[in-house]
Structures are given as C-alpha cells and as structure tokens.
C-alpha cells in the first residue's frame, strides 16, 4: 500500500484545498506546499528503501479493479520509476514556491484552482510512473491531460487557448492510437493466456508473433513520440511551453514528457522485443534528427521559453537514442538523463520565467545586460544553462556521455552524429546567455529587471544543487538504475558488446 499512500497524500491535499474557502489564498498555498513537501519526502524514503540488487518491480501491490478486462490497480516501482517519481515529487514543491504568485496574475483562474490542479497533476504523475498495469498506466497517461489542459488554458499567456487545445489534441490523438494498440495487446493476451490481462509482468511473458508486435508497437510508439516529443510530432511543445506559466512548463517538459520515454523503456522494449529490434534503426535515425533539429531550432528562436522547449526536443533525442541502442550504458544513461533533464530544464524554465515576469516579455531581444543589474540572477541562469549543455561536473554530462558511449559501442555513426550535437548545445545556450545577460543593460531592463529574491532562489537552488551533487556522485543514482536496466536488457535479450581487445574481464559486461 506504500505507493497508494504516496498517491493519497497529494490527493488528500487537493481535496483539503477544495474545501478551503477561496479567499484564504495564503493558507491554500501553505497547505499545497506542505503537502507537496511531505509527498517528496515520502517518495525519497521509498526510493532509498529500494533494494539495489533487485532489478524487478518492488513495493508491488495489486488490487483487482475491473476483472472483466483483467484490469487491476497494481502499483510498484523499479529503480527507474522510483527515481522519476522522486524527481517529479521534488520538482512539485519547487514549482509551487516559484509559482507562488502566478495564480493571482491570471484573471480567469483562482489560486485555489491553480494549486488544486497542481496537486491533482502530482497524483497522476506518481501514478503514471508507479503503474505496473498497462491499462492503469494508460488511464493516468490520459487523465494527466486534463489538469495540464486547464493549467495552460486558464493560467497561460495570450495564446493560451490555442496552445492548450493543441496540446490536448496532440496528446489525445496519440493516446487514441495507443488505446487501439492497448486493445490489441489485450486481445493477444486473451488468445495466449485464455483470459485478458494488462499486468505488466504477464504481458512481458507473451509470445506475440513479430507481425503483431510490429503493428501494436506503432500505436504505442506514436503516443510516446508525441509525448516525448520527437520530431516531427513536437510542434505542440513550444507553443504549450511558451504559453503556460513557468511552473507548468517545468512540470510539462520536466516530468510529463518523460512519460513518453519512460513508456518506451518500461513497455515498448519489454512487451515488444522483436518489434523494438526491428524498428530500432529507424528510431535511432529519428532520434539523431531530433537532436539536430531541436538544437538548430533552439538557435533560431527569438523567444526564451520556446528556445528552452526546443532544446528539450534535442535532449529527448538523446534519451530516445540511448534507449534504442539497448546497451546498458545507453539505457542507464537515458534513464539518468530523464532525471537530470527534469531538474535542469525545470530550473531553466523557472529562471526564464523570473526574467519574463519582471520584464513582461519573453523576447530575447528585450533583454541584455542583466548580469549588470542582477548578477545573482545571471549566475543562476548560467548554471542552469551549463547543466543544460551538459558541462562535466554536472549530472547531465554523465548521463549524456553514457548515452553517447552506449550508442557508440552499438552504432558508431549515430554516436558520431549525436556527439556533434553537444557543440550546438553549447552554442544555443551561451548565445542565449550572451544576448540576454551580457552587454550594457537597456533602460527598460534597468528599470524592470530586479535581482532574484529569496523565494525564487529557494525554488531553483535545490534543483541545481542536486544536479551538481549527482554530477560528482552519479553512482548514487546509477546503482539504483543499473539493475532495472539489466532487467530491461533481459527482456530485449541484448548483451553489451565486448571490447575489441582485452579488459573485458573487469566489470560485469552483460
């Protein structure tokens, strides 16, 4: 019941806020904050409690829900899910602190509504990573859309309805195709087991023929590729990220999009091993395209939020790349990447949000010389940026390099191409810094952009601290991830390629 309890905490918080009177805004905020902190603490507790020798699902719990469809409320987590849950739950309080005053700004939504939605979203985020029943996963996958839809549409910027609509329709369409495949899997399980089931472990045991796998794979992959987002299904992200409040964007890109890549590791590879192998080459190509495409478009952006969004497209290219090379380094790297990217992009979105809210504009050209008027702000911005361009010493570097080396040992060309991506990353981040932070501040900047305040600092520092800490001691996370990754490799029956000469003895290759 531990995971159910974990999910119950924010849910109760949401209900509590619902019953609170609309006017008691501060109280509402405090409740939301406290609840989210408790949730985070509990999530971390569970994560630490994980047995690092066991790659399987832990803390498993299972309660029958809709027996006629073999659906059960079954939760559990392996290292990957655990880390992602911890990441998400840690991010939420930061978002709440950062967005302390975001709700007041909107003339539509109320504070009460805002924080209720955030907490409900947190419930879904935990659920989607903790679900070990494919159907349950799908339910959270879809239900998640609703709070985000309202968060964007009610609290977003000028183009919010358009952005919210685009986001919803993209995700729904993806989800519908996933639903079709989902049913396909269900039927397949009926044919093989005699009774339909959505239980993850049971599904991994199916022996679907390659043809069926290839077809069903596509439905899932489409949904995940839209979520992830991979080129060419990415166009919803920049709009959504640019229109939503910084906190929402951080959650959207930092956590929700991970559902796509998480789904690939957790469901695509184990349930459709043959299809995964069959499609891997195409997906690797797609990933490489995403890396470059995202980076180049990030360079071409004039809006900071959009720039960050496109940089994420590039980052997701790396994650997907690492997943579909099937090597332990690639998979671990991608899993670790998901966590780091959550923190770094989250921090970046928040800082950009601070700037935008001060200057009243997200346009890069409206800034410049911020370093002079708000050095600490500039510093935080730079650190977030550096973590996004994977500077050694930051956790993002470790994960990115793991992905690259994992790719290299499997597919040199992809690795070579992807490696060039790190140059572009350096360019778009530092160019952004140069254009916004350096030079002589304009009058508007001088008058509007004030130094980062304590609250805002408190919101980003933990994320950055974690990035650095995990950069120096990545093993802390990796030792949780590795066993889970080995499990995944077993599902796709892949062994790491041995080095050309000697030295294979050291280390545990496969």
């Amino acid at each position, binding site marked *: 019941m531990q995971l159910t309890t974990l999910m119950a905490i924010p849910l109760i918080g949401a209900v509590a806020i619902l019953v609170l009177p609309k006017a008691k805004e501060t109280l509402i905020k405090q409740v939301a904050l406290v609840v989210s902190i408790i949730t985070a603490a509990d999530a971390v507790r569970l994560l630490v409690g994980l047995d690092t020798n066991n790659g399987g699902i832990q803390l498993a719990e299972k309660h029958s829900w809709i027996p006629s469809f073999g659906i059960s409320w079954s939760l559990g987590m392996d290292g990957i899910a655990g880390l992602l849950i911890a990441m998400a739950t840690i991010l939420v309080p930061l978002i709440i602190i950062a967005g302390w005053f975001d709700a007041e700004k909107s003339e539509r939504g109320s504070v009460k509504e805002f924080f209720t939605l955030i907490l409900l979203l947190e419930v879904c985020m935990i659920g989607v990573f903790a679900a070990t029943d494919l159907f349950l996963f799908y339910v959270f996958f879809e239900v998640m859309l609703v709070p985000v839809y309202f968060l964007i549409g009610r609290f977003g910027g000028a183009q919010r309805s358009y952005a919210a609509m685009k986001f919803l329709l993209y995700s729904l369409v993806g989800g519908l195709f996933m639903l079709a495949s989902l049913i396909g899997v269900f039927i397949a399980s009926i044919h093989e087991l005699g009774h339909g089931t959505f239980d993850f472990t049971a599904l991994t045991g199916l022996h679907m023929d390659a043809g069926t796998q290839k077809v069903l794979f596509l439905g899932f992959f489409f949904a995940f590729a839209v979520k992830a987002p991979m080129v060419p299904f990415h166009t919803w992200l920049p709009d959504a990220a640019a229109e939503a409040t910084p906190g929402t964007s951080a959650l959207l890109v930092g956590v929700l999009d991970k559902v796509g890549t998480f789904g690939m590791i957790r469901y695509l590879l184990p349930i459709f091993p043959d299809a995964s192998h069959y499609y891997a080459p195409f997906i690797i190509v797609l990933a490489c395209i995403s890396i470059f495409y995202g980076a180049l478009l990030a360079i071409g952006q004039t809006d900071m939020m959009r720039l960050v969004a496109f940089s994420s497209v590039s980052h997701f290219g790396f994650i997907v790349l690492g997943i579909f090379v099937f090597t332990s380094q690639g998979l671990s790297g991608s899993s670790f990447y998901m966590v780091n990217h959550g923190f770094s992009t989250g921090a970046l979105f928040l800082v950009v949000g601070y700037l935008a809210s001060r200057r009243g504009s997200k346009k890069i050209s409206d800034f410049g010389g911020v370093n002079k008027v708000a050095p600490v702000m500039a510093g935080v911005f730079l650190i977030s940026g550096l973590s996004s361009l994977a500077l050694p010493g930051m956790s993002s570097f470790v994960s990115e390099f793991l992905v690259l080396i994992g790719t290299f040992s499997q597919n040199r060309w992809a690795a070579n191409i992807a490696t060039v991506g790190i*140059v572009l990353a350096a360019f778009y981040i530092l160019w952004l810094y140069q254009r916004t932070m350096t030079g002589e501040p304009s009058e508007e900047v001088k008058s509007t952009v004030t130094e980062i305040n304590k609250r805002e600092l408190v919101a980003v520092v933990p994320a950055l601290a974690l990035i650095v800490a995990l950069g120096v001691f990545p093993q802390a996370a990796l030792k949780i991830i590795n066993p889970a990754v080995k499990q995944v490799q077993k599902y796709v029956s892949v062994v790491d390629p041995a080095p050309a000469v000697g030295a294979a003895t050291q280390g545990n290759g496969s």
Partner: protein
Amino acid sequence: MTAALIGLPLFGATVLLLGGRRTNAWGHLFAVAMSASAFFVGVATFVSMLGRSSEDRAVHQHLFDWIAVGSFHVPFDLQVDQLSIAFVLLITGVGTLIHIYSIGYMSHDENRRKFFAYLNLFVAAMLLLVLANNYFLLYVGWEGVGLASYLLISFWQHKPSAAVAGKKAFVVNRVGDVGLSLAVMLMFVTFGTVTFDGVAKEASKGDSTSLKLIGFALLLAACGKSAQFPLQSWLLDAMEGPTPVSALIHAATMVTAGVYLIVRAHAIFDLSETARTAVVVIGAITLLLGAFIGTAKDDIKKGLAGSTMSQIGYMILAAGLGPVGYVFAIFHLLTHGMFKAGLFLGAGSVMHGVNDDVNMRHYGALRTAMKITYVTFGLGFLAIIGIPPFAGFWSKDEIIHAAFGQNIFIGLATLIGAGVTAFYMTRMMAMTFFGEARWEKGVHPHESPLVMTAPMMILAVGSVFGGMALKFLGNIDSWLEPVVGHANPANDVSNTILIPVTLAVVLAGAGYAWVTYGQRPVPVVAPAEVSLLTRAARNDAYGDAINEAVFMRPGLHLTRALVWFDSKGIDGFIAGLAGFIAALSARGRKIQNGYTRSYALTMLGGAALIAFVLFLVRL
C-alpha cells in the same frame, strides 16, 4: 594529499562564489592563500617524490567509484607522476604569481572577488586535468578549464566583444571536446577501459585503424584546447580577457593542455605512425601560422597570442616526433610557461601604465618610463627568441634538433619559425620600449606597483635560469623517462652545426626587425597600403573569415530555413489537415439542406446503397 591539491583552490572558489559580497574585503587574499598553499602542497609532493626511486615515484589515490555502468567503469582516481608534478608546479607556481599580480591589476574592478574566484576555479580544474588517472576524468578538468576560460575571457561582460570572445572560445573548445569524447568512446570500445594505465597496457593489442582514429580524435581535442590549426581562431579573441588571464590561461597553462594530452597518450601515438605525422604537420602549420600572424599585430596582446600559438605549435610538433620529442615538448612547455607568462604580465604592466591602451603604435620609449617592466620583458624576450643561455634556447633548440632528425622539411619549418619569432618579438620590443614616444595625450606612463612587478621579476628569473635549471639540475629527460619512455636521439644533423645556424637565423630575423622598427620612426596609425601578406596576417590569416563563410553563415541560413519549415512545413501540415476536415465539414453541412424531401431522397439512396452492398456480397 593529492586531493588537497585540487581541494584547496576549489574550496577557495566555492567560498568566494557562495560567500558573495561578504567576502569582497578579503576575497582576493583568500584566493591567493588557497593557490599558494596548493603550490606548497605541490612542492611537498615533489620533494617526497624525489625521495623515492624513479619506479615508484608515481602516487595513486583512489577517491571513489565515479561511474560504473555495465562494463564502463570510471574511478574517481588521482595520480601524481613525474609528468603531472611538473604541471602541478607550473600551474600552482605561475598561478600563484599571477594571483598576486592580479591583486594589483584588478584593484579597481568592483568584481575583483569574482575574478579571483574564477582564477581559483581555473587552478582547481587545471589540476584535476593533470592529476586525473583516466581520460574521462581528465575530460572533466578539460571542460572545467574551458568554463573558467569562458568566464574569465568574458569577465568584462558589459563589453560585447568580450562576451562574444568568451562564447567563441567555449564553442570552439567544444569542437575539440567532440574529439576527446570520441577518443574516450573509441578507447572504451577498443580496450574496454579508459584509464591511462589500462589503455597503455592494452594499446599494443589494438588494431591500427582504431589506434589511428584515437590518435586523430586526441589531436582534434588538442587542436581545440591548444588553439592549433584549424581551431586556432579563438585564442586571439581570447585576449579580450584581463591580461593576467591571458598570461595564466592563454599562455602558460591551459592552452598547453593539448600537449599534455598527446604526451599522456603517448602509448597510442607510439604505435600509430599516421597519427604522429598528423600531429607533426598540424604543429608545423600552426607554428608558422602563429608566427606569421604575430608579425603584423599592432595590439601587443594579440601579438603575444600569435606567438603563443606558434610556440605551442613547436610543442605539438615535438610531441608528434614520438619518444624523441615528448621530453622536449614538455621541456619547452615549462620554459614557455615561465617566459610567456612573464611577457604577458609585462604587457599587462605596460597597459596598466598607459591606461589600458594595447596599440603598440601608441607606445615607444617606455624603457625610461617603466624600467622594471622593460628589464623583465626584455629577459623574457631573450628567452623566447632563444638566445643562449636563456630558458627558451635550451628547449627550442632541442626541438629544432629533433625535428631535423625526423625530417628535413619539418626541421626547416622549425628553423624558419625561430627566425620569424625573433622578428616579431624584436618588433614588439622595439615598438614598445625603444624609438620615440608616441603616447596619446593625457597618458603618463608609470611603473606598476610592487605587487605587480614582483611576480614579473620572479618569472624573469625563471626565463633566465629556468632552462638551465630544468636541463642540468632537474635533468628533465631522465626525470620524465618513466612516463614517456626513453628518448634515443638518433640524429644525423649534429648540434654543433645546428646551433650556430639557428642562432644566425634568429639574429637575422631580430636584426631585420630592429632595422625596420627600431631605427625608422613608427607611424602612429597603421599604414593602410600594405602587402597582401601583411593584410592577411593582420586578419589572423582570415581564420575568422573562413569560419564565418564555412560555418556561421550557412548555419544561420539553415537555422532560418528550419524555423520556417517548422512553422510552415510541419505545423502547416497539421493545420492543413485540420483545415481540410473543417472544409469537409463546412461542405458536408450543406447536404443537410433542410428539405424533408431531400432527406427522404438520401434515405432512398441509402436503401439503394445497402441493397447494392448486400447483393455485391452475394456475388
């Protein structure tokens, strides 16, 4: 012990950065203390090494397992061997001097604390670079120094030129880093390990292709960091940074990291003829190119930067010569570290005296105004052009000698380089300290305070005796032998002929420069109508122009095209799809025309359709 080396300056940086304004008052002193104590730790380590026999001088320190995924194991281990300690002393020694110098140089800057924090950060990163025991950990230091260099070059961020220069340095370095990443990956897939020892042990088993590729990748990395052709362009812009930075990072230490890398990876290069040749060629090109650029610069720092390029070209070339060259590469690296740092500090002192004017055409006759600077700079000058017995002579001459041993053309390249070096250094000397005063009005040249001149003097001492000390006291080649293997100079051209020849060339170059710039008056504004060559040299041999034309402009066009494609192409397609459905809907509604009879007709049609399908199936 070893960890402390890195820890102290890192601690300094952390305190100063997190401490904020509170540390403004004592920040710079604290930083100096950290750097100095690191130096003393280094010395202590060195002494303790001397106490041991050459085999077990190397010290390894296991801190913790950094990364372990599958068979990819990277320990967070440090190692101090004869090669590293040389660097440690150079970095901490010169570093500390420059820290001290900066106290004076940056005294008026409101961000001085930050400056010292960055300096400490740099020292820490550079030490990690040379103390790591594997290529991947080295990578961390490698980009760490890149970051420090970025921060320090664009330290005066309000100057757009500085900001741009910093970004350029980092990005170009990233290009080099691609090489390092690829090298690490190749090592991992070929040997299954990325530790220095591991690779060295397995190297012999590696196939020639992989070895060659690794070599090339490492060379690319070296080019990026050490501003070698074709990645040299950033170094000249890097002079936007405060002069101490140029002295420490862009002359003495960081830019030589490439040399360190190649020497470190000697196991690879020993086995790959092709890779070595590539290194030599790159080195040769750069040493000429750099020298060439140096000849036409009126900006004293840019002139020195060009010279740095060319001097590092020498080192790279030497490193490319294989076992015979490694030692001399490091040898020259160390001497160069001393005299070039001295020269830069001198330049800084000069600028300090003339209100930060860098244009040598506004100098002249400064020898009277700032004596100490004149003397120290002069000694550095003698050292770099290789007049015996000054430091440069010993190291450079060895390289030239070894080069001739390798191949006559390479030898000639080094020889010419020596001549050109003499030319542009003499030119610089003449334009700065001799001739008539061409000072801007309102400029009253004055000597710098002791806090600045003292380091210059110490370094001047180094430029005088450094070479001899290393050669005879330290007898460096035998010292480094356990690391880089034994050098056996099988040489047909004997030094007895070569030394005079070299000297002659050097003197010729110097003499020509003296005649042109020492005797005749120097125009205050650079003459416009000059030979194509001079123009090319002034424009850094069009390095930027080429980058601009080959990468930047096409890149930006591509970006614009993609942005258009993203909105019009991909998004347009989706929007088109939606529009299409909407249009269908708008058309389809019209069928619903409100006339009951037409509805009935539709039903009849439907009945017909149904009947049709039913009968169709039956057939």
